[in-house]
């Protein structure tokens, strides 16, 4: 019985086991270290805040929005490049009261449907392929009339490794 030969065969298997363990460790560490730092939720909330401060500063309605010529991106200090050229952001504003109703949407309109799923469905974990959505409701007054402002924001920015 060649016991020495048997031991040499075992060491080959042991090297194979080590190689598999090593690959597993490398794969696991790269997967963990390469993960994105998730800030989309914060970014969505900041964007919603900015829109609300623009449309209803201190609870008083920015009356310009009631007109037909109101450009949300320009008037609220947002970037045209971002909202017209990149598909990573979306803002939807609905203003209404008993006698008035207006809706403005800028950016990637496909996110509106995505946000209905993200905000209304009972998701155990937010799937990364959906944008981060944030909704905010405010009330503002103008000429003794109260208006309800609903702001829906979606952010799907990924960032870029250069």
């Amino acid at each position, binding site marked *: 019985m060649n016991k020495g030969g048997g031991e040499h065969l075992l060491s080959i298997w042991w090297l194979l086991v080590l190689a598999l363990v*090593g690959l597993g460790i490398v794969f696991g*560490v790269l997967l963990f*270290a390469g993960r994105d730092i998730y800030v989309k939720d914060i*970014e969505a909330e900041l964007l919603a*805040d900015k829109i609300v401060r623009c449309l209803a500063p201190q609870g008083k309605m920015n009356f310009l929005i009631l007109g037909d010529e109101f450009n949300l991106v320009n008037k609220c200090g947002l970037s*045209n*490049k971002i909202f017209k050229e990149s598909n990573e952001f979306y803002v939807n504003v609905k203003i209404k009261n008993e006698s008035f109703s207006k809706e403005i949407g800028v950016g990637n309109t496909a996110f509106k449907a995505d946000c209905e799923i993200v905000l209304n469905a009972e998701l155990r974990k937010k799937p990364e392929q959906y944008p981060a959505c944030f909704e905010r409701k405010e009330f503002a007054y103008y000429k003794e009339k109260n208006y309800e402002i609903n702001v829906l924001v979606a952010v799907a920015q990924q960032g870029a490794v250069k």
Partner: protein
Amino acid sequence: MNNKANTYLLETIIFIILNIVFFVVMLGFAIKSSGGIGQYEQAYAKQIALLVDSGKENMTFWIDMGKGIELSKKAKYDKQIIFANDFNEIVVKLDEKGGYGYKYFTNNKIEILQQPTLSKPYAVIKIGGEKNE
């Protein structure tokens, strides 16, 4: 018989040493990857972009980038670290080959008043007036 025992002992010792070397290499790789330059570039770029998004015109803010500068020094990179390009993007670069960009959604010009260095490891960034787009 003694020769066989000696050979067996030697083989076992070599086997144990190789195992130790293997696990030390794996541990070193894990530690190096977890504190990598890429993660810091991403963190700083996002931090600056979010500060710009939440700020107002003429605001100036300071960011401590001490850890990033240390990594940059180890990577022997001593050029400009923070860039604000025409695509509304903040790019942070801590070594020659890397870099991470993250966009901000406001329409303001961004001025990098001070790049972080070893002696002054903080960046000073000012939110300027609106751009003509």
